[in-house]
C-alpha cells in the first residue's frame, strides 16, 4: 500500500518535470481546459441555451465529438489484436500507448456526455433507476465505463509492475487484454445502436451505421496513434520502430478502403431509391430547400477521405511524410463525417418536415476545445510518466535515497 502511494506520488511529481517545450505545451493545454471550464460554468448558469442546440436539432457538437471519440478509444484494440491474437510483435512495445490513449479518450467521452446533460446534478439518478436493458444509453454507460476500467487496469498494472521492478504476471493482465478487445468492438457498436434503433429518424435507422462506425474508427484511431508514436519517439527515449508505424499503416489503409466502400453503399441506397427517407441525406450532400449548411463540410470530408485513401494505397506512404499527411487528412475527414455528417443531418429536416439549421455557439466550441485540451493533457501526462517507468528508469528501489526524478529524457 505504501509502495502504491509512493508510485502515485512519483507519477504525480514526474508529470511536472520536463523541458520548456513540455511546460509550454502543458500550460497551453491547462489554459484551454480552464477556458472550457469557464464556458461550461456559464452554460450551467444559463442552461443549454448557451449552445446552438434547439428543439429541432437537439444534439450537436457535444454528441458529435462524443461519437467520434468513442471510435478513437475503440481503436486501441487495433494495436492489441495484432500483438495478442496474431503474435505480430512489431507493435508489442507500442500497445501500451494505445491503451493509455483509450483511457484518456474515454474520459473525454464521459465529459462530452456530462456537458450535454441538462441536469448534471441528477447524474446519480442513473444509479438509482437504471433502465437496463431497454435503453441503449444504459448499455453505453456500461460499455464505456467498463472499457475505462479495463484499460486503466491493464495500463496501471503493467506500469506499476515496471515501477516495482518485477515481471508482470500474465494471469493478471492477458485475460483482460482479450476481454478489452471484444469490449472495444462493443463500445462502438453499442454507440452506433444508440442512433440506429430510432425508427423516427430514417437517416440513422440503417443497419450499415454500426459497420461504418467501426471502419471509420479503425481508420482514424490508428492514424492518430501513428502521429502520437512519432511524437513519443521524438521527445522521449522510447524506441518506436518504423515497422510498428508501417504495421499501423496497413490497418489504416484497409479500414479507409472499407469505410469508403460502406459510404458508397449508403449513398447508393439513399439516392437510387430516392424515397421520402432521402431528405436528410439530400440536406447533407446537396442542401434541401435552399439550406446548404453542411454541404461544404461533407464534400471537404469526402475529398480528404479520397486523397488520404489514395495516398495510403500508394507506396509513397511508406515514407513518413506522406504517411503523416494521409493520417492527418483521415483524422480530420472522419471527424467531420462523424460529427457534421452523422449527428446533425438526422435532425434536418425534423420529423415534421421543418428545416432548422444548427450553428454551434462560441461557448459550445470553447467547452468542446476545453475537453479536447483536457484529454490531451491527460494523455501527455500518461505518456510522460509511463515512458521512464516502463524503461526502468524510475523504480521503487531507485527511489530510496534519490528523491529528484530524472528530467525529460532528451535533456
Amino acid at each position, binding site marked *: 500500500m505504501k509502495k502504491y502511494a509512493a508510485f502515485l506520488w512519483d507519477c504525480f511529481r514526474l508529470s511536472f518535470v520536463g523541458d520548456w517545450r513540455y511546460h509550454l505545451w502543458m500550460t497551453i493545454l*491547462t*489554459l484551454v481546459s*480552464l*477556458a472550457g*471550464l*469557464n464556458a461550461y*460554468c*456559464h452554460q*450551467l*448558469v*444559463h*442552461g*443549454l*441555451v448557451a*449552445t446552438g*442546440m*434547439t*428543439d*429541432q436539432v*437537439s*444534439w450537436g457538437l457535444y454528441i458529435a465529438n462524443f461519437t467520434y471519440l468513442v471510435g478513437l478509444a475503440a481503436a486501441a484494440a487495433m494495436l492489441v489484436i495484432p500483438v495478442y491474437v496474431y503474435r505480430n510483435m512489431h507493435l508489442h512495445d507500442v500497445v501500451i500507448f494505445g491503451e493509455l490513449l483509450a483511457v484518456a479518450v474515454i474520459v473525454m467521452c464521459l465529459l462530452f*456526455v456530462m456537458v*450535454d*446533460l*441538462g*441536469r*448534471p*446534478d*441528477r*447524474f446519480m*439518478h*442513473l444509479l*438509482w*433507476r*437504471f*433502465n437496463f436493458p*431497454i*435503453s*441503449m*444509453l*444504459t448499455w453505453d*454507460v456500461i460499455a464505456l465505463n467498463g472499457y475505462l476500467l479495463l484499460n486503466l487496469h491493464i495500463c496501471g498494472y503493467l506500469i506499476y509492475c515496471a515501477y516495482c521492478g518485477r515481471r508482470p504476471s500474465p494471469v493478471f493482465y492477458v485475460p483482460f487484454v482479450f476481454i478489452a478487445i471484444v469490449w472495444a468492438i462493443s463500445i462502438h457498436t453499442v454507440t452506433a445502436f*444508440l442512433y440506429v*434503433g*430510432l*425508427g*423516427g*429518424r430514417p437517416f440513422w435507422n440503417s443497419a450499415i451505421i454500426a459497420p461504418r462506425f467501426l471502419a471509420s474508427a479503425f481508420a482514424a484511431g490508428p492514424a492518430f496513434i501513428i502521429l502520437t508514436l512519432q511524437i513519443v519517439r521524438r521527445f522521449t527515449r522510447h524506441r518506436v520502430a518504423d515497422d510498428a508505424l508501417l504495421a499501423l499503416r496497413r490497418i489504416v489503409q484497409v479500414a479507409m478502403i472499407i469505410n469508403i466502400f460502406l459510404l458508397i453503399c449508403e449513398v447508393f441506397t439513399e439516392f437510387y431509391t430516392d424515397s*421520402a427517407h432521402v*431528405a436528410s441525406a439530400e440536406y447533407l450532400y446537396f442542401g434541401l430547400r435552399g439550406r446548404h449548411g453542411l454541404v461544404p463540410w461533407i464534400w471537404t470530408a469526402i475529398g480528404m477521405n479520397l486523397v488520404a485513401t489514395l495516398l495510403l494505397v500508394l507506396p509513397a506512404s511508406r515514407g513518413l511524410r506522406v504517411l503523416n499527411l494521409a493520417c492527418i487528412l483521415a483524422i480530420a475527414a472522419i471527424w467531420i463525417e462523424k460529427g457534421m455528417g452523422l449527428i446533425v443531418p*438526422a*435532425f434536418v*429536416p*425534423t*420529423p*415534421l*418536415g*421543418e428545416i432548422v439549421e444548427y450553428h454551434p455557439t462560441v461557448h459550445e466550441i470553447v467547452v468542446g476545445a476545453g475537453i479536447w485540451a483536457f484529454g490531451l493533457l491527460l494523455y501527455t501526462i500518461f505518456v510522460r510518466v509511463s515512458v521512464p517507468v516502463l524503461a526502468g528508469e524510475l523504480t521503487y528501489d531507485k527511489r530510496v535515497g534519490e528523491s*529528484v526524478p530524472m528530467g525529460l529524457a532528451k535533456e
Partner: protein
Amino acid sequence: MGDSREQDSAAAAARNSAELTRRGFLSHGVVALAGTSAVAAALAPLADLNRDDIPTIAEFLQKHYKEMTAEDKQRVFARIAKAVESRYQVKTKLADPPPLDGVEFVYGLNLSRCIGCRKCVHACVEENNQSRAPEIQYIRVLEMQKGSIDVETSDHHYDPPLVPDSAKYYMPVQCHQCADPPCVKVCPVEATWQEPDGITVIDYDWCIGCRYCEAACPYWARRFNFAEPQIAPDQINPDIAYLSNRPRAKGVMEKCTYCLHRTRVGRMPACLEVCPTGSRKFGNVLDPESEVAYILRHKRVYVFKEDVGTIPRFFYYFDERGSRYSEPIAPADTGGSG
C-alpha cells in the same frame, strides 16, 4: 585526483540542489498562485448561479415518482406547491389525480374541419404553464398542400391575415401518446413512462436532460427547457398537477399530457375546449358509447406515420360530407375477366 573531482562534483551538486530548492520553492509558489487564480477565474460565472438552481438536500434526495410512498408524496407535493407559491405569488395546491380504471384516452382530430387558427396552441401554453420566453408550445399546426399528406411540403410558419386559406388544409400535431412509445424505451433513467390510461408522463424532478427521448420521438412532440422558463405571475395557471402542468425547471423535458389534471377528473383538454370548429374529439376508447369510439368505427381515419409502428392514441379523420365520394357511385364493371 579522481577522488577530489568526485568530491567537487558532489559539492557542486549539493550547492545546485540547495539553490534549486530555494528557487523551486519560489517558482512553485508563483505557479501555485497563478494556477489557483486561473481556476478561480474559470469558475467565476458560477457566482451568477441562481440560488433556486442549486438543489436542496430534500430535492437531491427526492425519490422517483413511482417509488414515493404516500407520506413522501404529501411532503414533496407540499414543498413544490410552496415553491410555486413563493416564486409566482399565487395560491396553489399540487394535485396528483390517479388514472381511472377502465379508461384509455384517445384523441381524434378532424382534418376536414380544422381551419389552422392556432387557438389550441395558445390555450395549451396558458393551461400547461409553459415557458413564455422562450415560448414552448406542445402543438405545432402544419399548413398542408392540398393533394398531399407529406409533411415535408408543409409550412410551419404560415402567417396570413385570415385563416383558412382555401388552397390549403391544416394538420395540428402534438404528442400521440403512443402505445409503444420510443421515448419511454430510450430514457436511461425511467424518467418518462406510460400510465395505465395511456398517457405518457414525465417526472420533471427525475429527468436528467439528455434529450434522447427528443431524438427518438417520430412526432417531434417533446420539448426541452434550454433556458430558465419565464412565466409572469399573473399568467400562472394555479390548477397544477405533479405529472402534468406544474412549472418546470431549466434543463428538463416536457410534453403534452392530454391535460391529465383536467381529463382525469372529467374535464376536456384545454386545446379541445378552445377549438372554435369542433375539430377535436377526446374520450375513453374503451367506452363503446364515446365519441372517439364512434369515430373510429364509422369515419375515415388516418394514422400519421403508422409505418413507424408506435401505435398512436391520436388519429386524424375526415368528414364524408363534402367529399367527392359522398354520392354512391356504380361499381366499375369488371367484365368477368378475372
